[in-house]
């Protein structure tokens, strides 16, 4: 054992030299730009960084305090993410403000550490679903809509396509999912809805990583579904879209989840993807002030992180910008209460919990229409924002629906029950009352 002594010493010397960041809000950016999911992770990280750059250039930071950040490569691995989390959580004058892991498995790996570290976590459109119950999970914020909420909107969307929720009765819906914790997450809520609306549901797991899905789609074809929900991730998505076409399932009968809703999924699938639907937290299109500002303050100054063409167009990039927006809005809210100084994680947590994206706020941030209004509260850490459906027209995504509200009458009781179970297991006392 003692044989790595010397190496440890050299490492130790190295780590003493840590960069101190004074007088700035510190935003830790845990991204993944390498590995099989690096393709999706890189533009998201670009968007996040670009937004922060823009805020510094345009507003001089938040509340007069500059925003500083550091990127740490997680390679989409929980252990690497934990290392990044531990490395960055105490950086900056007041410590890190908020983490956004951008991965469900990554989220789970730190949930139990948050309370001790007083560190909030924003998991927008992914992560632990029952963490929407703020009474049990004070530190986690699955903002806008969680997996289950989005799932209810998806069934509503299908109902809308068919001309009414009563038309769902007797329909056959296939759920093609990534065979992992992430993929299985929506099974209970889909089951619940199939009981409620009377449609038939059948699951088709796809073995990771999903390079060859011929057998799965032959099975789907044999089932003769009316709609197919595609719950994929990474390389599985475009293969699924292609295989669906080969199995003669029209793309407009496919409804992807928000992680199957990117140009990375549709462009490689070529013409097969035309008409493909998917759910999203954001509106398609680039005609928003926030993107103009990023181009103006960041790219025109030659400071752009990603490709210029991505700005306002690429879905993952836009999600990254949205992550930046959430972080900045939360810090801003926190400074309203705690004053214009570098914010700590605990202070930012309060900020997130009191976020109110009303119409005026959206306009002020230049994102009116990009996302719908929503409001976070102590017990509702989600905000229950409605969901947008997008359709790939062969060249770009366009809106396939209005904002569709989620069905909290289904989701909320399930979340509360699940969270209560967690509280009991961990011996936590619910708050907010």
């Amino acid at each position, binding site marked *: 054992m003692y044989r790595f002594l010397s190496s440890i010493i050299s490492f130790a010397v190295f780590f003493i030299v840590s960069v101190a960041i004074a007088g700035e809000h510190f935003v830790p950016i845990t991204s993944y*730009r*390498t*590995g*099989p999911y*690096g*393709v999706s992770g*890189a533009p998201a990280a670009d968007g996040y960084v670009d937004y922060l750059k823009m805020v510094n250039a345009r507003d001089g930071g938040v509340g007069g305090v500059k925003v500083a950040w550091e990127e740490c490569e997680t390679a989409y691995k929980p252990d690497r993410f934990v290392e990044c989390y531990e490395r960055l959580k105490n950086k900056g004058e007041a410590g890190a403000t908020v983490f956004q892991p951008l991965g469900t498995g990554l989220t789970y790996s730190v949930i139990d550490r948050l309370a001790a570290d007083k560190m909030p976590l924003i998991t927008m459109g992914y992560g632990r679903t029952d963490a929407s119950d703020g009474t049990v999970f004070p530190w986690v914020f699955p903002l806008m809509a969680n997996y289950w909420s989005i799932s209810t909107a998806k069934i509503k969307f299908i109902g809308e396509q068919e001309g009414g929720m009563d038309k769902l009765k007797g329909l056959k819906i296939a759920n093609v999912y990534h*065979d992992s914790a992430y993929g299985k997450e929506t099974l209970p809520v889909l089951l619940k809805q199939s009981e409620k609306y009377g449609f038939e549901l059948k*699951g*088709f*797991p*796809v*073995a*990771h*990583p999903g*390079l*060859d899905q*011929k*057998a*799965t789609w*032959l*099975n789907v074809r*044999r089932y003769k579904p009316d709609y197919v929900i595609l719950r994929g991730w*990474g*390389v599985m998505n*475009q*293969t699924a879209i*292609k295989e669906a*076409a*080969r199995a*003669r399932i029209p793309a407009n009968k496919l409804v992807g989840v928000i992680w199957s809703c990117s140009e*990375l999924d549709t*462009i*490689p699938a*070529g*013409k*097969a993807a035309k008409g493909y639907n998917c759910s999203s937290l954001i509106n398609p299109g680039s005609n928003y002030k926030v993107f103009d500002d990023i181009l103006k303050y960041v790219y025109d100054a030659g400071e752009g992180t990603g490709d210029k063409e991505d700005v306002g167009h690429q879905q993952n990039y836009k999600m990254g910008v949205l992550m930046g927006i959430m972080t900045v809005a939360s810090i801003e809210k926190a400074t309203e209460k705690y004053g214009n100084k570098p914010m700590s994680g605990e202070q930012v947590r309060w900020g997130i919990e009191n976020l109110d994206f009303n119409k005026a706020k959206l306009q002020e941030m230049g994102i009116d229409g990009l996302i719908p209004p929503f409001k976070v509260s102590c017990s509702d850490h989600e905000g229950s924002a409605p969901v947008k459906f997008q359709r790939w027209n062969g060249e770009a995504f366009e809106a396939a629906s209005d904002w569709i509200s989620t069905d909290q009458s289904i989701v909320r009781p399930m979340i509360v029950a699940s969270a209560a179970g967690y509280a009991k297991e961990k011996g936590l006392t619910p708050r907010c009352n």
Partner: protein
Amino acid sequence: MDWWFFLEVFVGGLLSGVMYSLVALGFVLIFKASGVFNFAQGAMVLFAALTFVRLLEMGIPMLAAIGVTMVIMVILAIAIERIVLRPLVNQDLIILFMATIGLNYFIEGMAQLVWDSKVHVLDLGIDEYDAFEIGEAFINKFDVYAALIAGGLVLVLSLFFRYTVIGRALRAVADDHQAALSVGIPLRTIWIYVWSTAGIVALVAGIVWGSKLGVQFAISSVALKAIPVLIIGGFTSVPGAILGGLIVGCGEKLAEVYLGGFVGGAIENWFPYMLALLVLMIRPEGIFGEKIIERV
């Protein structure tokens, strides 16, 4: 039972299997000539495919791009021989295997550094959705073409091994390094030849898989699909790689479609290994592998 459907699953499985064989071939070449399991084969597929697709995007015509990529793969092979293999000559096979682990990381990094880590669409001009309709079964044309490419490659390689001087030398090296050296076959040249050939096979696999999945990092993981193929077919047999691919492809598709439903599906990942295990219990050296004779 719907026999047309069965036919479609069966043929689909065979065609998928050929795609796996294409990746397995690269492993076989290097294993045959040097006994090394080349862990970097997946990375070579990625590198070749990325190089090819980026050249295409630069506006170079397809055939020229293939030619340039081949040259680059040969240069890579020479570099590998010079920098990695030559200093390690006469070392145990496990050490050469370890070196390929290092190579794997290096090539993965290099491929993405030199080119980039985005998804690139590779359009070969073949309609991927067109199918032959046989009765009520659809047989995808693209898959058939891919299978033909793979079959052609195997044929060429088999002939190459059998009838050319280099091919015979390769076989001699595979049988016995010392003996091959003693009859004047330069091991270094041989290594350059096999690694170049493996590089070119990687390019073919990269083009076929790249046009299926889009050229991106994930195609390096097709190497995993090749392992059961190798084991069933034997690490040293070119036709074995094809047969192994057919068995694996067909077996996993039939299992997924007809058995998967009973146990919750997604059994495609482990089924080929169980199948391979079964084969090995009966024939420990793989179907086509050379029998290991142990003398007491």
